[in-house]
């Protein structure tokens, strides 16, 4: 009761706390003796050990039921996302032609990105495909490794491949004010767009899969003006108009080429 509390002085309260912390009379630490602490710790050790085991067991059982190659549900990925390279901050590709330090990072990023697309690597890892057909590699009950995806040679990008030497297309056109932007489709396993018509993004294998990319070259974009560009996937049965997801099957970015 309130009036009891008043009577206790500060020192008494302190002494009470000290006694609670360590009571030499009963040899109690925080209200428990050594044996009592030992027992309670042992109990919790066993208890949590059991819970941890149970957790591990249920997780293991759950993981057994999960296919290592294809996720169980893909309902969230009905429309693959679209992204551009170089991945500029806020999807805003802005640079000044005459100041190389404004666009050199883009060029380097593209070089890095296109590394796995080098023709030699593609030839070693992937197989050529027939255009206009899905490249399927069914397991037919026996897992066949390694799977081979369709070749996508860097050279196919032409002027945007960045394969030329300095002065040529080495800089993906950034130095000359005709920049390349690569548009890529997010990878989704077992995604069959367009029902074997029009554009085909066929991807079955895992290991050495390189995403197909589309290079867009802005040959005569007017300088010092901000351009708003939107790319969309166009395929039958593909919705690209989700209000909430601005990256489902489409990508919008800004491009500004400054010239002095």
């Amino acid at each position, binding site marked *: *009761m309130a*009036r009891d509390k008043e009577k206790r002085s500060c020192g008494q309260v302190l002494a009470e706390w000290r006694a609670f912390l360590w009571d030499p009379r009963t040899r109690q630490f925080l209200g428990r003796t050594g044996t009592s602490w030992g027992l309670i710790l042992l109990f919790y050790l066993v208890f949590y050990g059991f819970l941890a085991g149970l957790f591990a067991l249920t997780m293991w059982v759950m*993981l057994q039921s999960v296919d290592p190659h294809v996720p*169980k*549900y893909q309902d969230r990925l009905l429309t693959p996302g679209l992204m551009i390279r170089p991945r500029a*901050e*806020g999807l805003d590709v802005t640079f000044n032609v005459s100041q190389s330090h404004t666009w050199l990072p883009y060029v380097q990023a593209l070089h890095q990105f296109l590394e796995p697309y080098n023709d030699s690597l593609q030839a070693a890892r992937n197989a050529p495909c027939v255009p206009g057909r899905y490249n399927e590699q069914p397991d037919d009950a026996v897992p066949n490794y390694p799977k081979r995806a369709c070749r996508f040679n860097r050279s196919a990008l032409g002027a945007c491949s960045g394969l030329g030497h300095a002065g040529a297309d080495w800089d993906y056109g950034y130095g000359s004010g005709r920049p390349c932007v690569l548009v*890529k489709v*997010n990878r989704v396993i077992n995604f069959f767009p367009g029902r074997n018509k029009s554009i085909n993004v066929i991807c079955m294998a895992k290991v050495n899969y390189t995403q197909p990319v589309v290079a867009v070259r802005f040959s005569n974009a007017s300088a010092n003006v901000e351009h708003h560009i939107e790319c969309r996937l166009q395929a039958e049965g593909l919705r690209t108009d989700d209000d909430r997801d601005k990256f*489902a099957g489409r990508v919008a970015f800004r491009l500004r080429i400054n010239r002095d």
Partner: protein
Amino acid sequence: MEALTKKKKKTVPTSANSFFLLQKSEVYSVEIYGTKELEKTEAGGGDEKYKDIKGKKKKKAEELKKELDLEDHKLSASELEGKYGTNINKGLSSARAAELLARDGLNSLTPPKATPEIVKFLKQMVGGFSILLWVGAVFSWISSGIQIAQGADSPFDNLYLGVVLALVVILTGIFAYYQEAKSTNIMASFSKMVPQQALVIRDGEKKELPAEQLVVGDIVEIKGGDRIPADIRLIAAQGCKVDNSSLTGESEPQPRSCEFTHDNPLETRNIAFYSTTCVEGTATGVVINTGDRTVIGRIASLASGVGNEKTPIAIEIEHFVYLVAGVAVSIGVLFFIISVSMRYKILDSIIFLIGIIVANVPEGLLATVTVSLSLTAKRMAKKNCLVKNLEAVETLGSTSIICSDKTGTLTQNRMTVAHLWFDNQIYSADTSEDQTTQPFDQSSPTWTALSKIVALCNRAEFRPGQEGIPIMKRVVVGDASETALLKFSEVLLGDVMSIRAQNKKVAEIPFNSTNKFQLSIHETDDANDKCYLLVMKGAPERILERCSTIMINGKEEPLDSEKAEAFQTAYMELGGMGERVLGFCHLYLPENEFPDTYSFDTDAMNFPTSNLCFVGLLSMIDPPRSTVPDAVSKCRSAGIKVIMVTGDHPITAKAIARSVGIISATSETVEDIAKRLNIPVERVNRREATAAVVNGMELKDMSLQELDEILCNHSEIVFARTSPQQKLIIVEGCQRQGAVVAVTGDGVNDSPALKKADIGIAMGIAGSDAAKNAADMVLLDDNFASIVTGVEEGRLIFDNLKKTIAYTLTKNIAELCPFLIYIIASIPLPIGTITILFIDLGTDIIPSVALAYEKAESDIMNRRPRNKQKDRLVNQQLAVYSYLQIGIMQSVGAFVTYFTVYAEQGFLPLTLLGVRVDWENSAINDFEDSYGQQWTKYQRTYLQWTGYTAFFVSITIQQVADLIIRKTRRNSIFQQGLFRNKVIWVGIFSQIGIALILTYGLGHVTALNFTPLRFQYWFVAVPFAVLIWVYDEVRKLLIRRYPGSWWDKNMYY
């Protein structure tokens, strides 16, 4: 009355002192509702206030003392006329009265100052967890402000969260306020009374006016049955008697006349006090004080200064709030530091802090507690206990001492004939509430004679028009003894009124204190017998003095010393039982001396009043209610000490105490032992006596230590002849023993004790408004047995609140763990803040209220009252078991569901570790999962919401198991019965129903962060729910098997 005078003079300073003591504690215990209050912490400020009150109190007491020195009783009528500018015959003029009314205000007591509604409301807004939530809301707004300034993508999320948190606080506040207001309103409607009328002479005319309109100087007329409308100096009176019990506690009517008999205004006969009742006679008087300036008004205003003690449940809830708030704040701060040292941004760390606070605070709990308490209050109201203050519901349960009034509470509050003595033999009469016949032998002709005297020598009459009503319930005009005799003879003889009509009264001398007898002379109903019958009743010894013969078996026999001895023995025996004894005698007046034309003159006494024939004795008592002995024994087995505190005579008090079991049959007082061993009282070993009867006179001279000793050493105590001030001292003494004290009372004078008590119980029927105002509870039927029902309900709700809190606290860990793991392991957030609120204020509410309907596990009336210091509502075991065992199990179950949902969508558990920064980066729209698939930001967010929903569903499913295990703390669920409490099932279905609606109904409203969930995920946590049930059954089994073991000590909450 003598005692009271001394008391008054003496106790004014001491009572002022004790009031000031109370006041002191009031400064520190601001009245709260299950919440912690904002204390004025600065010692200096508190001290000042304390001094201030001290000063004010002293002044008030001085004032009371001073104003009690009324001089009006010493003045003559003409002096009075001069003083008040009035005329005894014509009264005041209307104009003058209006003037005075404007000056002095209405003649009514100012009701105790109520806390302004807005203050009450604001208290609800800042009390308890609200502060924590406000902090959370403010943090949310700050961080959203920063985010807006930084131009982040979704700055409004935190803004909304802040608004939601504020809304939660405001809504729960409004709810609590509404609940409280509702229970207060019950009282308000209850205390409203029919306005009183007064007969006033104004402008020379008699007028009926509302008593409120009276002013000083008004001439009022009062008659038997009226309530005195103001303090009045009488100027004319005829046989006027007043019942001053509302002022002094003594119910013996006191005569009032216009003579000045005593210096003390409280003692003198020519003043009648406001709110007392005129029992009989008529009187005219001048109003000398009105409203709060009346004596009663001053006592009442002093009582309103006595601070309320904090209720035990308020202390418990405060303790619980501190505990949870402590956990919340320390975990919050700890993880704030951890997250800052893990190089999280300060802004992020603040957002984590909000999440931790929200997860830790059981937002819905206080509302749940309020509902549970008001459900119990409703149940108690049905059993005639009206609870004014919700928390008082539980206080009754922890009560360890009941200081009970005698009159009306333990007894029926009406005199009833208990014993008869005639033919040298004592007969017992039936004293039960609904008697219709009397069992004793009525064949003796002496009885016929006696019954005739009883019926005729009686001035009491039934109010007309009550033929259909049982005799014992009929309203009678007359004093208590005469009423008892009237009803007694009505039961035995039938229509008393017609008997009286047949035996026409020709002369009468009413009872007065000098004669101590009442006499009347009647014609006989035998038409042939022309002689008159003289009947007389009165104090037995006075009656016997006037008798020379005694009737034995219908024959008059001379009254020799042997017969006188028999009379004495019977008289002593009946008196020793605490009964009021009356003697009855009669005489047939010889026809030759008193022919039917004889004119009797009561002043000249021209008839014989001696040498009468003694017929018998009748003794009366206010008998105990028939339900009380059982209730007292229930209290005893429940470890509650029942102390009787009464203004009555010790012998009467002791007799009633014995008959209801307050003093049990085997125990003795010091005096009893002395009498048995035939030794002086001083030589008795006081330790041997378990019972004690303490006289108010003794109490007055006792030191506090002596009183403590008595309260400590005797288990059965009766305080007799106590004044209201002493009642307060007794209550304080009990509280010094650490007891939770319940006090019953009805008079205005009881209100300080009622306020001081941990729970004041006022009588609904007999209680005065002041008592009802001061009390926490009102007994609608004035019955002690109802208190016992209340105790039972109070204990049950304490147990059930424990269960409710245990249930609610458990899931807080399951809400908290996600945040902690999110911070440490950087996984996508498993459950959102809004989702947590939907559990706390959605799915969990009805189940936790349902636990209030749970039946007791064992006989709760067979254990001792809880120890305030040791038996806490939320003890260490409860917190540890809920937080560290069941709570952790729930978390594990929920996490399994969470990982399952993510894994089946492509994110295997190991992939999730450490992804937080990229996961939440909205510029990354090709985030790779374990299969190399790439996710846009929105796709990830949607998956995160699905995770929230899965986590939410898992907690809900496991809370069903939690709800079931919380039904009992010791017994197996199967002993308690799974289906006995139907409301639990309502709770379970509501829980699942709300979850279904949120998931599938509102799954498309993105703001709520719910998504439709695949059906199988509802069952992932089911094994864990089963595990919780099984584990708890094992826990209870071990507790039952090994009482007192290590397991019992650590696992029983």
